[in-house]
């Protein structure tokens, strides 16, 4: 009995952890929404995403950011990305990322899981 209870408890914890982490495979599918302006490895209308996690917002030297993004003081982490992606113009007033945001928390979590995995991947040899 104790063994089965322990199994159930472990399964619950494992499930909760998986949920907390987000699903990068689903996030990859969501990333196509970003594809009008962003790519992993090079700058487009928006800056490249390689090296994003831990990077200070507005800090790629040769990219033309909005003054608002340069002054934001944000460092990109799972937490700050979650807040930004929920409503970019609200968090950074004056940003040129004029996108209403992703309202579904699970979708944001999955997208961030993909970014965490792939912005430090082999596709990012020149990441700064």
């Amino acid at each position, binding site marked *: 009995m104790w063994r089965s209870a322990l199994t159930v408890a472990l399964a619950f914890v494992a499930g909760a952890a998986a949920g907390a982490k987000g699903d990068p495979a689903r996030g990859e599918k969501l990333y*196509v*929404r*970003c*594809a*009008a*302006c962003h*790519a992993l490895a*090079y*700058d*487009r*209308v928006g800056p490249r995403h390689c090296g994003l996690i831990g990077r200070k917002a507005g800090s790629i030297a040769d990219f033309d950011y*909005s003054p608002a993004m340069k002054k934001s003081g944000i460092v990109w982490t799972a937490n700050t990305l979650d807040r930004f992606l929920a409503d970019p*113009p609200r968090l950074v007033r*004056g940003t*040129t*990322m*004029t*996108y*209403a*945001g992703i309202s579904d928390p699970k979708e944001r979590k999955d997208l961030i899981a993909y970014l965490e995995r792939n912005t430090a991947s082999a596709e990012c040899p020149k990441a700064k």
Partner: protein
Amino acid sequence: MSSFLTIANPDAARRMFLGRSGLLLSGAAVALLAGRDVLAAKSGGAAASDARILNTALGAELEAIAAYQVGAESGLLQKPVLDLAVQFQGHHKAHADLLAKTVQKLGGKPVLAKRKYEFPVEALKNQADVLQFAAKLEQGAVSAYLGAVPLFGNRDLSKAAASILGDEAMHWAILRNALGENPVPDAFMA
């Protein structure tokens, strides 16, 4: 799924493509904003914000024009697909022209095309690669306009952006169809 790419006769393929897609871009989108010189006065304090949204869209349209140029000059596209790419590029030019004029009406400065764009040209080996690349850009454009529509202070601009969104969605569907994929995979765009 049948594709006009599988038809040997280019004229027949073109007729099939045009017949299926109804791609003639309505003049309504252009009429939404052309000649509306009172736009800036109406928009008031929201004008700068609206101009910023339009400028982001303009930057993406200018990149799309360059991307289709790369595709057209790649030597990888055969007729009628080449004609299709040139036609879609023409739509993006029309969008960019309208967006630039509207940014000016709102008192903003339209962004200019970059001197150089980076595209994954090394990954484009055949016609399907080019179509896949273009389809991803068009799908992204649909999402971008969808994300912009609710942000405008001026509802006429939301309507115009939605009109452009519809055009980008048609591009995406036709490109998917050309690749032999389900042209409209979902009931909703995201």
